[in-house]
């Protein structure tokens, strides 16, 4: 008898645990899959370090990023530079400033440029995309026209080379960090808009939208609760990936001389631009900010790719 009772208890216990582990929402499942991916972990670690650096960098910096403390030791016009040494880990730049401190302080600007311009692209692009997608899927004939107009407009934006578009915007708005962020953000708008609209079109013709229509659910609710939540995953992936492109494009704009002219606030792209002139004599001056940009972009790209895999419905278990 006791044996039988034990057996039943054991069975109940096992059933209990299996109930707890029976997965949860799509997002939580994607999180679980992300945690199992090496690519995601490496990407997340790089991003975490970068963000940490951006926050505490200015306090970590051993020297002032703008003071030309060692001006007497560097003679840029004669090709005399000071490389890495005990006092200045990354050496000195052409004005006798400490490179290590400048890199640490510059991380904040670089992250801000990336995040803000990505957010500009994401928010405006998503709004345009939702409008267009909703109009196309449920708006009838007028909606289709609205969608066509919006999409032709984004096509025009997409057909311009992105750097050229960004340079034109920057040229109109003048030279500042805000300009760089807006210019890079605007370039991202049509990408997000097209992506979300396409994803919404696919979801709009799915069975559950038809089923919701058959139950008389209002169009607004169908868009908000049925189509939109199911269309978001590619946009989230794109947002992560575009952080990397935004940082690179911002660096490119800074390199072209459209970035922040204020020497007190170092930024990796500007540093790279300034280093170009002295590349023959002191290549390391360009190498540090460049490596920083590459590693950061790599981090966002790795996480983005891992998220793409985790959210792919075809791989959903």
């Amino acid at each position, binding site marked *: 008898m006791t044996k039988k009772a034990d057996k039943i208890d054991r069975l109940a216990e096992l059933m209990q645990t299996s109930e707890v582990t029976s997965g949860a929402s799509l997002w939580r499942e994607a999180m679980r899959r992300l945690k199992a991916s090496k690519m995601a972990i490496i990407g997340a670690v790089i991003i975490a370090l970068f963000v940490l650096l951006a926050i505490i960098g200015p306090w970590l910096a051993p020297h002032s990023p703008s003071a030309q403390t060692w001006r007497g030791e560097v003679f840029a016009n004669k090709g005399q530079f000071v490389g890495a040494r005990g006092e200045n880990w990354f050496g000195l730049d052409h004005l006798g400033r400490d490179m290590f401190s400048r890199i640490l302080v510059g991380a904040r600007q670089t992250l801000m440029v990336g995040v803000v311009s990505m957010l500009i692209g994401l928010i405006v692009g998503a709004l345009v995309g939702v409008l267009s997608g909703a109009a196309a899927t449920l708006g009838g004939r007028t909606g289709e026209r609205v969608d066509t107009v919006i999409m032709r407009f984004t096509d025009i934006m997409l057909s311009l080379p992105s750097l050229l578009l960004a340079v034109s915007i920057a040229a109109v708005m003048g030279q500042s960090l805000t300009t760089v962020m807006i210019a890079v953000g605007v370039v991202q708008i049509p990408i997000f808009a097209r992506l979300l609209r396409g994803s919404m079109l696919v979801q709009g013709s799915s*069975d559950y939208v038809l089923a919701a229509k058959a139950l*008389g659910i209002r169009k607004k*609710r169908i868009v908000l609760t049925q189509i939109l939540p199911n269309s978001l995953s590619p946009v989230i992936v794109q947002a992560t990936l575009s952080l990397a492109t935004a940082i690179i494009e911002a660096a490119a704009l800074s390199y072209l001389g459209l970035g922040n002219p204020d020497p007190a606030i170092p930024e990796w792209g500007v540093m790279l631009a300034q280093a170009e002139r002295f590349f023959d004599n002191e290549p390391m001056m360009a190498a540090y900010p460049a490596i920083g940009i590459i590693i950061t972009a790599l981090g966002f790209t790795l996480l983005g790719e891992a998220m793409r895999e985790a959210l792919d419905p075809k791989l959903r278990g």
Partner: protein
Amino acid sequence: MALLSVEELSVTFTAKGRKDSTAVDGVSFDVDQGQVVGLVGESGCGKSVTSLALMGLLPGKGVKVGGRAEFDGKDLLSMSPRKLRDMRGSQLAMIFQDPLSSLNPVVPIGVQVTEILERHRGLKGEAARKEAANLLDRVGIPDPTRRLKEYPHQLSGGMRQRALIAMAVACAPRLLIADEPTTALDVTIQAQILELLKELVDQEGTALLMITHDLGVVAGLCDQVNVLYAGRAVESAGRRELFAHPTHPYAHGLLGSIPRLDAPRGEPLSPIRGSINDRIAWADGCAFAPRCDYYTMECLTGTPELTEPRAAGHQVRCVNPVLPKPKAEVSA
């Protein structure tokens, strides 16, 4: 008068640079309160398009709908989209074929059920959740409060179809259209789902339009059966009458093609030749003629009329119906 009365319903898909394709070509049938009417036919005969046309769910562009479909005296086909949307879910409801893809994958079941209660019955918050749990309980989902918090992929196929049925009957619709509700399920679950639908019809007096290709489902559930071929009804009769005396060669062939357990060993199956693509336009004659064993020149001169060659109320669209052979011939 019947609750739903469909007359000469036709649906034509048009596309630029292509020939128009007529999916439904003059289908007529009635559904009464508390009655189960079957639309039977093979893939591509226009069953699903008929149901979508009735619900007003066909895409607006490239589709021409003709004929009349009166529900409770109001014409569904000419109704304004807004009015029709208010009817859907409350008066008319539909159950789809694939229960997984018909549920929103990123929203818990509970939200999807309460959504309808909110929309059509004005229930909110706790009241809506309670009613949703009641509904799930009624369609036989155990532990409904827990299930409400779960996502579609956590439910089994049968459970999902039950949830969809719960959503469809949430507002006690007067007509329920079931488009092959059991096709994606295995046989035991099929039987349970059919039992559930039968119960709903018996208890609520809901009219049920059952769309299926499964003659077993028809035999178990339907009162009246319409056999469709190439977008037209070819035979229409009560269930017993149809199964006992299939008279159109197509219906005859369908029933004859079912493998029987009591058939002698080694007896070959008797399929219907060809496929639904081997057909002629109804305007030119009987669309089934190319596959028919009985066709004559008469079959190729215009659409055959519906006649009642065997019994009153048993309509057959055929000039050479399969009738019992005269006694003399059998003995010869």
